[in-house]
C-alpha cells in the first residue's frame, strides 16, 4: 500500500506492506536509527516518536496508520544548523544518559510531555515518563534534564544555566 506522510518535516511517499511497523519503517525505509527497538511489547518506550506531535510507541503502530500524518524522530528535533532542541541540550548538560539506548525515546517522551504541560512538577515528570525505562536506572538525571528543559523553555532557565 502506498503511504504519504511527513517525516521530520519532509514529505515522503513509500509503498509498504500493511504489516510493516512504524519503527521498522523509520529505521529501515527512512534510514532514521534514533528510535530503538527495545522490548518490542509496548513497554520500554525506546521506540517513542511523535505522531502529529504526540508521543507514541512506534513498535505498536503500523506504518499505514501514519498515512497522511506527521512523524518526528529525535533526528528531527535538531535544527538544520545542527543546534539541538532545548530538551536534547538539557539531557547533555545534565548528563541525562548513561548507555544511551533509552535516550531517544526519553527525549521524545519528554518533548511530548512538555508540549502538554510546559511547567511540570518533578512528580509529574516522573509520572509523565512512566512509559520509558532506563535499565541503567539513570532516572534522577533524566528527571533533572526534563525539569531544566522546562525551565529553559518557559524562560526561567535557572537550572540549565547553573549546570552549563
Amino acid at each position, binding site marked *: 500500500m502506498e503511504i504519504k506522510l511527513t517525516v521530520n518535516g519532509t514529505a515522503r511517499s513509500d509503498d509498504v*506492506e*500493511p504489516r510493516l511497523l512504524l519503527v521498522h519503517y523509520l529505521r529501515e525505509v527512512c534510514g532514521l536509527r534514533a528510535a530503538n527497538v527495545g522490548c518490542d511489547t509496548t513497554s520500554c*518506550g525506546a521506540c517513542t516518536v511523535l505522531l502529529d506531535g504526540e508521543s507514541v*510507541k512506534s513498535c*505498536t503502530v503500523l506504518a*499505514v496508520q501514519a498515512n497522511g500524518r506527521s512523524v518526528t524522530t529525535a533526528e528531527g528535533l535538531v535544527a538544520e544548523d545542527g543546534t539541538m532542541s532545548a530538551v536534547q541540550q538539557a539531557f547533555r548538560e545534565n548528563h541525562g544518559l548513561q548507555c544511551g539506548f533509552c535516550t531517544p525515546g526519553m527525549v521524545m517522551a519528554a518533548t511530548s510531555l512538555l508540549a502538554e504541560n510546559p511547567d511540570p512538577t518533578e512528580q509529574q515528570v516522573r509520572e*509523565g515518563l*512512566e*512509559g520509558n*525505562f532506563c535499565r541503567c536506572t539513570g532516572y534522577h538525571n533524566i528527571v533533572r534534564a526534563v525539569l531544566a528543559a522546562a525551565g529553559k523553555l518557559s524562560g526561567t532557565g535557572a537550572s540549565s544555566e547553573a549546570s552549563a
Partner: protein
Amino acid sequence: MIPAAFDYEVADSAAHALSLLAEHGEDAKLLAGGHSLLPMMKVRLAQPAVLIDIARVGELSGIRSDGGELVIGATTRHADVAGSDLVRAEVPLLAYAAAQVGDPQIRHRGTIGGSLAHADPSADLPMTLLALGGSVEITGPAGVRTVAADDFFVGPFETALSPDELLSAVRVPRGGDVPWGYQKFVRRANDWAIVGVAAYDGRVALASMGGTPLRAIAVEEALRGGASAAEAAAHAADGTSPGYDFHADTEYRKHLARVLTKRALQGETG
C-alpha cells in the same frame, strides 16, 4: 516481532466498516488504536486476514451529553477521555480511570471502545464501566442495540459482540457529585492491576479477580444493609475465583481485594 500478513482496509464511515465486516466475516478484525490488537498480532495470538481501520471514522469519536448520560465514541482515545473537561466534571471516576491506563504513549493511541471490546479482566476500563453501571452501543446489520456492562463481559477476552458487529459508543451516567473511589495495585510502572477496585455510588467492581471484571455483589448488599465501608469490604472476595501468577497467588489476591475495596469505598484513589 512481526505480525502475520494481512490485508488492510480503511473504513470511511460506520456503515462502511459494517459492510467490510459483512464481506470478510470472522477473518476480519477492527483496528482503532491497535494497542490491544497489535501486541496480540505481533506474538501471533491473533492472525486476522483483514484489518479494518476505523480510526478515521469521525462519527465514532467524540464526547457529548445525552440527557442523564455522557456518550463517548468508541474510538475516543484514553488521553482525550482523561483530559476532557466534560468527563472530569460529570464522570470523574471515568476520567481518573482513563488516566491510569498504561502510560502516556499508550493513552495517545488506545481507545475506550478498543479496551472494552478486548475485555481484559485485569484492565482499567472494563471494571470502571461495570462500577458506573454504564452500557455500550453496538451497531450491527440489524441496527443499534444497547448492552449493559453487566451483560457485556461474558468471559476472558470475550464479550457480547458478534463478529459482524461494531462497538460504536459507550454510555455512562452523569453524576459529578456521586462518591467514588479507585484502587489499582501494581508492582511495576504501567502494568495491569494485580487487583483493581472501582467504587461508585454503592456499586463495586473488581479487576483481576476472575475471568471477567466482576461486581462485588456481597459488598454492595452489605452496604445496602447499612454496613460500614470496613464491614462491607470484608466480603470483597466472596464468590470470586482469582487466578495466580508470579505476582500473586489466589489468597493474596483475595486479601488485596478486601484491603483495596475498603480504600475505594472510603473514596481513596491510588
